[in-house]
């Protein structure tokens, strides 16, 4: 497994060097600096030199590097690095060069705790904050053996993500369904790809050890939870049935989830058997699940770009965008980026709504519409004047892209049907749900 963890700044200075095995020698830092940081040709996150493999992740203005000497589990390495970043963010607010330099000791202490002999150990923020502390994060000091035992039980127990002594006066749980809708549309207007990556974020402020059950309008569940052959074969086997009942399903208001992935608190065996999402949540905010949907994706916006290159000196644009959702809703922060040729000298724009501005540094016309009501349609017309260049190269016409956020709407049609909380003290709790759809990679070629 990992032989060492290194952190560098962008200049290539080694800020953190922690070896977990004797084969991680200090001069490996120089080698990484020379081979990766100062070598623009290296574009892969994994580099093997001789018997040493460097796997790195760039975050803010630092490089986090894992050194391994064997054919290690690469998925584990990267998952760990991202977890480490998450921990950093939760401890310091922002995990960048400055945070590292102000917290050397704490970072070394964390590394010593979350990796043993290069094997990731408990990385749950809540548990770690019980005994690894900074000025910002104070907690029960672990100097007395009884307190310590509580910590060690927690760190090695089956519910390592939750302390047992959590108390709230008011028990509340907030569920945010956030969907990133991805679209790739061809120049001729056919949808090449449309899918939804959803995540469900939960903020649980619940007393004790609550057992939660969570229900969605998931088709497999609503259809009586009887996937073919006694529930053993789950999603796979029923795909034949899926195709036939497409229409009926849409009418019934249920969605087909292509795939789901859950936070480690969710009892996966239970979900596999009867599609029930049951769990004991961590305290506070966490990502309960991620899912993917590819059928019946509702696209919130339709875009019709007409782009004409007039000779070699001018490009004319006419971009129409229509909101495809109920008139009761409205999207916010709608931004349309319309690429211009690299040799654009100046542009003129006219819009029926919002503002458009040319951003030469990104070769874009940026059209912003702060509030976009459902069913309305807006148009931009623009013209880019080009300088003549000695070396005339065809313009690569990158796709037009959109970003937006739209509340109370899910592209997949997913709805939360219930969230039940069971706790031995039988308190009542308040639950809230929010829906939001954002643009993932929402691209239209022209």
């Amino acid at each position, binding site marked *: *497994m990992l032989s060492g963890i290194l952190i560098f700044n962008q200049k*290539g200075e080694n*800020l953190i*060097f922690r*070896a977990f095995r004797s084969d991680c020698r200090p001069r490996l830092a*120089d080698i990484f*600096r*020379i081979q990766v940081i100062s070598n623009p*040709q290296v*574009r*892969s996150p*994994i*580099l*093997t*030199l*001789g*018997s040493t*493999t460097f796997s790195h992740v760039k975050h803010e203005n630092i490089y986090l590097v894992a050194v391994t000497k*064997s*054919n290690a589990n690469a*998925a584990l390495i*990267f*998952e760990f690095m991202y977890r480490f970043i998450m921990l950093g963010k939760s401890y310091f607010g922002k995990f960048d060069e400055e945070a590292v*330099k102000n917290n*050397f*000791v704490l970072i070394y*202490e964390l590394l010593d705790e979350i990796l043993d*002999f290069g094997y990731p150990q*408990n990385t749950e923020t809540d548990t770690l904050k019980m*005994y690894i502390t900074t000025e910002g994060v104070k907690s029960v*000091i*672990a*100097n007395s053996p009884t307190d*310590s*035992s509580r*910590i*060690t*039980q927690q760190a*090695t*127990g089956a519910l390592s993500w939750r302390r047992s002594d959590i108390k709230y006066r008011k028990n509340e749980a907030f569920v945010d369904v956030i969907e990133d809708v991805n679209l*790739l549309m061809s120049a001729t207007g056919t949808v*090449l*790809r449309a899918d939804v990556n959803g995540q469900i974020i939960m903020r649980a402020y619940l007393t004790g050890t609550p057992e939660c059950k969570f229900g969605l309008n998931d088709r497999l569940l609503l259809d009586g939870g009887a996937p073919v052959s006694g529930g053993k074969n*789950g999603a*796979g086997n029923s795909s034949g049935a899926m195709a036939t009942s497409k229409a009926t399903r849409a009418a019934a208001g249920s969605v087909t989830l*292509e795939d*789901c*992935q859950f936070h*480690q608190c969710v009892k*996966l*065996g239970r*979900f596999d058997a009867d599609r029930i999402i049951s769990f004991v949540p961590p305290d506070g905010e966490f*990502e309960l699940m*991620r899912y993917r949907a*590819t059928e019946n994706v509702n696209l919130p916006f339709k875009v019709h770009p007409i782009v004409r290159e007039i000779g070699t000196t001018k490009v004319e644009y006419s971009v129409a965008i229509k909101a495809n959702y109920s008139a009761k809703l409205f999207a916010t922060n709608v931004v349309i980026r319309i690429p211009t040729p690299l040799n654009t000298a100046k542009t003129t724009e006219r819009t029926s709504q919002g503002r458009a501005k040319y951003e030469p540094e990104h070769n874009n016309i940026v059209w912003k519409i702060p509030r976009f009501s459902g069913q309305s349609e807006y148009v931009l017309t623009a013209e880019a004047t080009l300088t003549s260049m000695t070396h005339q*190269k*065809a313009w*690569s016409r*990158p796709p037009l892209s959109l970003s937006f956020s739209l509340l109370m709407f899910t592209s997949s049609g997913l709805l939360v049907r219930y969230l039940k909380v069971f706790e031995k003290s039988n308190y009542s709790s308040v639950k809230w749900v929010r829906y939001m759809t954002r643009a993932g*990679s929402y691209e239209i070629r022209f």
Partner: protein
Amino acid sequence: MFIGFAPYAGTYSSLFPQSRQGKVAELRQELSSGGKKDKNYSAKKIALKKIVANMTMSNNDMVALFPDVIDCMNLSSLEIKKMCFLFLVNYSRMKPDVALKALPILVHDMEDTNPLVRALALRTIAYVHVREFVEATFQPLKRLMQDNDPYVRKTAAFCVAKLYEHDKKMVENSDLIDRLNRMLKDENPTVVSSVLASLVDIWGRSESISLTIDYVSASKLVSILADCSEWGQTYILEALMSYVPQDTAEALLLAERIAPRLSHSNSAVVLTSCRVILYLMNYIADEKHITSLCKKMSPPLVTLLSKPPEVQYLALRNAILILQKRPEVLRNDIRVFFCNYNDLIYVKVTKLELMFMLTTKENISVVLAELREYATEIDVHFVRKAVRAIGKLAIKIESAARQCIDTLLELVDAKIPYIVQEATVVIRNIFRKYPNQYESIIGHVIQNIDDLDEPEAKAAIIWIIGQYADRIENSDGLLQDYLATFHDETIEVQLALLTATVKLFIQRPTKGQQIVPEVLKWCTEETDDPDLRDRGYMYWRLLSTDPASAKEVVMGQKPPITAESEKLDPRTLEELCLNVGTLATVYLKPIHQVFRAARPRRLQPSPALQRPPLEDGTAGMLDYNPPSATAGAAGNTSNSGLATIVTTGNPISPINPAPPPNFPVAAPGTGPNAATGQTSMNDAVNAADSYFSGVGSQQMASMDLGGRDDGIGNGGAQQMQYVVTQNQQQVYQPHLAGGAATGELLLL
């Protein structure tokens, strides 16, 4: 290189006093300050914080403070203790004699009443690579392995692997591994998963230890999966690779029970589950169940594409691998692998490769439209790959060849130099694959001859000129243009020119008779390149002995080419499938070529194994290497064609011989006792067989690489190496590293 570092601004600068000596002295004084008044040792804490901050940042100046730091180690503050321990771990190797003073403190702390302190001391002492520390760990460790606190026990479990790294012999001669093995019965799942991680780690670095798990234990391990942390689950899943199903129903049941893990949000759990399930499938008889398991793996793999780019990349590389083994896993819509404009380049290139593999007669139109789009993007490397993919699709799917060629010609018309060059190369391959079908486009291709300046493209156009010398009006003129600069060309181009000139002469003797003798003379007398000289002599003799058979040889039918050259050979495929999710799957090469010290994994025979482990007939022919030389020599030669990853040819660096075959112990459980009476002769023979045949196939691969040398110059070899070029971005290229650095690197 590294030029010190400037003082930092803001809060940070206070941690770094100015001059070096001054700094050490100042810190020493701070460390001893405070005295009795300082109850919470806050002055000492601040001083130690500065020291820790300076540890990595200012070379090794801080080592001078070692004795002062040890003096602080016994203060009753956990915070101070942790900092001192960190210092100790960092510098003990440099000053073992000073470090020794800390030993009694550590030994004492291992008896502390606070479990966190016990674990900390144990964890720390085992990091210190100093003989006395290692020796002093043994006795306390045995006690702490039975500690009543699970946190201490899991620390102790890893500690055994640490000691094994320091001193194999000493651990093997003790009963530590047996004790570790017994800890598998622990009631705490975290402890059990730690024990397994430790055992697998030891297994990976030992030649004499075998790890076997019987069905009952495997089944129990699967049942505690749900109670482990995500990392613990990964360790358990990795260990399950050592379970060899004896019965097909057992394998199926286990696979079904592991399948729910595929919904875990941690990609390490997902990919490692895939590895175990793919492995168990080898022992499952019923095709229906295999299909159902395959279907379960598909959505999670695609979902990994919404993870960070590094994980996406890994998932895609593994998809390429799994696709070759179990095509039914990726029966998805090919469009999920289309590139997003903002994908990182390594993700894009891998998606492109996967798209190529998934393209069929049915979806080729969609794919071609997509590739055409990519060919207009900005990244040159990616554009080239896209163009090349179009050409390769023409070769892969015959019925779509015309469509591909039209797309290529369209792209060529845009006159972007690197697209033209890439297209020329693939069009050459298309001619080669479908003789007498598409020659009508020769004129179109020749038009751009002046834009070509890369060797590969030049060689391609020269091949076309030579091959079709009789159809191209001014073929001799075109060749003459190139021959004018013959001596400045690369070997690749020179070889192509030689062959083309001979072809010209054979097809149009009157035009060629002037040039041929001249070129043959250059190639045989004025070159230092053995390949060029050999080929020159070969043609010379051929032409001078029998012109008629020369024509037959030179213009004869060529062996067919395929676009599937990046398919892994069955043995490598099998090996990589047992390592899904590891670093080796990024390279998609035989594991020993990248990770020499890695202990090989093979499918173990059992009554339930559906298909016997690969026994390719060729291996038998090749393992006649003198056995004594095999290990060293094979390591050396088999890499010659692929020296890009593994350092070779450095006389100083010892070439690790491949580990000798392991002789599995039939009895369940683990133990250093390699050859008990129970060991059946068969097992040993099988292990030896599989080892030696592994050596054979590696050599086959390297022979294949070198053995392609026909009319198309380097083209053949280039194709064979497709996987290599595909990965250029992570393959080590010595010429990029620069002179001095390279020498240093080889010693890693």
